[in-house]
């Protein structure tokens, strides 16, 4: 055995190592072990030739922190490396990452096919704001794979969805929907905020652009707003005439053809050169640094998030005050098998459950828990709860609420990494309070 020739194996760094090191070279930064915070707006040019070269994208480098910043750049490379992407562009929030993605891809007169189960802010963007820019969207339920195909029109420029819909936990069949997109010559964009690359790398399942609100699990600490778009590098922009601003000499950037010059990084290059220049939702270096601190422990945290979530699923499923529990780990969840395939490292820490007693019970529960925080966020290391019908989705009318997969008794739980017994004890307090109004009204 010992004389058997050693098999060649690539020794590129793996996930946990990349979480700590990718995108940063200490020897180019005064040996500083931690990533320095480049708290600056602008960068010296060597001479006029150097200045012109930077503006013409002849050389790499920084000009002005709205376009790029060295600290933010480390974050971008780090997330690109973790996702298996070619390039990334960080933004001031998850919403600006989504907006910038769409604005880089589309122009007035274009159309998108969009999953109907999305974060409430994203629904508003697609339903009400993008039409103001002449971009129309058709919404399709995430499980209706065929529906995505049927909704594609001549002017459709992409498909957008969240892998696990929020907050109904419906999973879109990403490999199938990617195939539908690619057969139509358009890219699939996936908001993978809830998964992080630890749970799922959408590029491995056919996605072309991945978006994160880094505000959530990626950072974990709940201290900083941030977003990012990541490019897979596989999509061939030149296969058809649908994306002239990517493939033809583009007036918007000195006659540059992004696809010809930058190939697998063309989308990010355009999003930065045009989008950051014209819209400007740049991430502050301090916030980029804060997010980097979180990413260092991403896999350790995600393991605990997922194990705590599975414990909570068991606890809630057996609880007398709970009418139903939705989480992809529940065997009778309609997407249980698909979740196993797409989320092999854990099914995430978002749980939705119905509280017996409907809306009043929900309100009582939320108002009485002490450890779980009632707030409009998800993916904090601390446990968070909200009642969507009266919180995040409160601007929606009854019909839209139903279409988004919501109900009045639904509580959305983002399981933190506290001691599991403390979370359960806290929920007991909430459930006790929730049972009271029901007892009263039943008499």
């Amino acid at each position, binding site marked *: 055995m010992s004389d058997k020739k050693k098999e060649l194996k690539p020794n*590129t760094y793996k996930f946990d190592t990349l979480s700590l090191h990718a995108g940063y070279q200490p020897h180019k930064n005064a040996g500083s072990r931690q990533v320095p915070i480049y708290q600056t707006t602008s960068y010296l040019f060597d001479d006029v030739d150097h200045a012109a070269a930077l503006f013409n994208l002849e050389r790499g480098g920084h000009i002005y922190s709205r376009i790029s910043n060295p600290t933010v750049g480390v974050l971008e490379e780090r997330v690109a490396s973790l996702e298996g992407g070619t390039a990334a562009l960080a933004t001031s929030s998850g919403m600006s990452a989504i907006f910038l993605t769409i604005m880089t891809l589309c122009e007035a007169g274009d159309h998108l096919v969009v999953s109907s189960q999305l974060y409430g802010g994203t629904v508003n963007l697609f339903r009400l704001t993008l039409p103001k820019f002449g971009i129309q969207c058709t919404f399709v339920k995430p499980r209706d794979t065929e529906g995505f195909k049927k909704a594609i029109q001549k002017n459709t420029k992409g498909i957008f969805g969240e892998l696990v819909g929020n907050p109904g936990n419906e999973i879109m069949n990403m490999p199938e929907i990617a195939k539908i997109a690619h057969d139509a010559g358009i890219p699939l964009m996936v908001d993978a905020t809830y998964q992080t690359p630890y749970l799922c790398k959408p590029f491995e399942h056919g996605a072309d652009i991945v978006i994160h609100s880094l505000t959530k699990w990626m950072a974990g600490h709940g201290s900083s707003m941030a977003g990012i778009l990541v490019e897979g*590098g596989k999509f061939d922009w030149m296969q058809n005439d649908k994306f002239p601003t990517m493939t033809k000499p583009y007036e918007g950037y000195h006659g540059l053809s992004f696809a010809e010059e930058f190939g697998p990084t063309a989308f990010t290059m355009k999003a930065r050169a045009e989008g950051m220049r014209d819209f400007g939702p740049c991430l502050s270096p301090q916030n980029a640094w804060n997010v980097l601190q979180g990413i260092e422990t991403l896999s350790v945290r995600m393991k605990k998030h997922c194990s705590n979530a599975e414990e909570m699923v068991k606890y809630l499923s057996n609880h007398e005050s709970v009418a139903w529990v939705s989480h992809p780990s529940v065997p009778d969840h309609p997407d249980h098998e698909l979740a196993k395939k797409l989320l092999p490292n854990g099914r995430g820490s978002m749980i939705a459950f119905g509280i017996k007693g409907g809306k009043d019970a929900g309100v009582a529960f939320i108002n009485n828990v002490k450890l779980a925080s009632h707030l409009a966020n998800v993916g904090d290391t601390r446990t968070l709860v909200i009642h969507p019908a009266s919180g995040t989705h409160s601007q929606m009318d009854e019909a839209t609420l139903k279409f988004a997969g919501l109900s009045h008794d639904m509580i959305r739980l983002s399981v933190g990494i506290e001691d599991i017994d403390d979370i359960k004890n806290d929920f007991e307090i909430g459930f006790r309070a929730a049972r009271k109004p029901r007892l009263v009204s039943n008499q």
Partner: protein
Amino acid sequence: MKFKVNNNEVFASTGGRPFDKKKPLIIFVHGSGLTHMTWVLQTRYFAFHGYNALAVDLPGHGLSSGESLKSIEEMADWVNDVIDAVGHKEASLVGHSQGCLVTVECTSRYPEKIKTLSLMGGAGAIPMNPELLSLAENNDPKAVDLMMDWAHGPAGHFGGHPVPGLYHINTGTMLAKSRTIQNTLGVDFRACDNYKNGFDAAKKIKCPTLSILATDDKMCPVKEGKKLASLIDGSQVDIIDNCGHMMLLEEADRVLTVLKKFITTNYPPLSS
């Protein structure tokens, strides 16, 4: 731009400026399994400073049609055909890795046409690891993963791309996987492995020559690059610390600075 060589359509990036017959020509030749995009941080500069910078996709690679050429000698003749096809009488050549074998061979065959030669990560011969060669010929994506591992120095493995937001290893991987691996990398590796004429060809080269080598280059180590350079009369050598085989991206700025000085001195641009 697109043009025809031997009835096949060839794609070459012109670095963001239209091709202009009056300007001197520099042809950039990529390495095994790669494309014109590896040169983006050199070509755009020359294109904006008085040259036609033509980063070609070899036949069957990137955006060029046709089948991959099977030997370094054929590729060398093809580069000469490119000069004719774009209507020029002479050119400067820049090669990376396999592109060095090609440009060395081309310069030795057409000495009257080639005005300067710049070699990055070059060697007189590039014998392939048999297992890597077999993986590439069998269309195994592991061949690309191994190449990306060996092609980047320890620093490049961490990232630190000169263009903000780009990640070296994944970008290189996507370039090398953009066409069928066995038809690009597989054919190229075999051509490198078969090529034995590098040292003899080098001895015939008389034009100004520059070699840029990198201390952490595992694919064409400094020692091999120096051996090649020592056979070329008066050739200059520049060695980059802390850098691997992908120096044209890993240390793009340094490479451009050295290349700019060498080419503008020995093959001046059309002054504007």
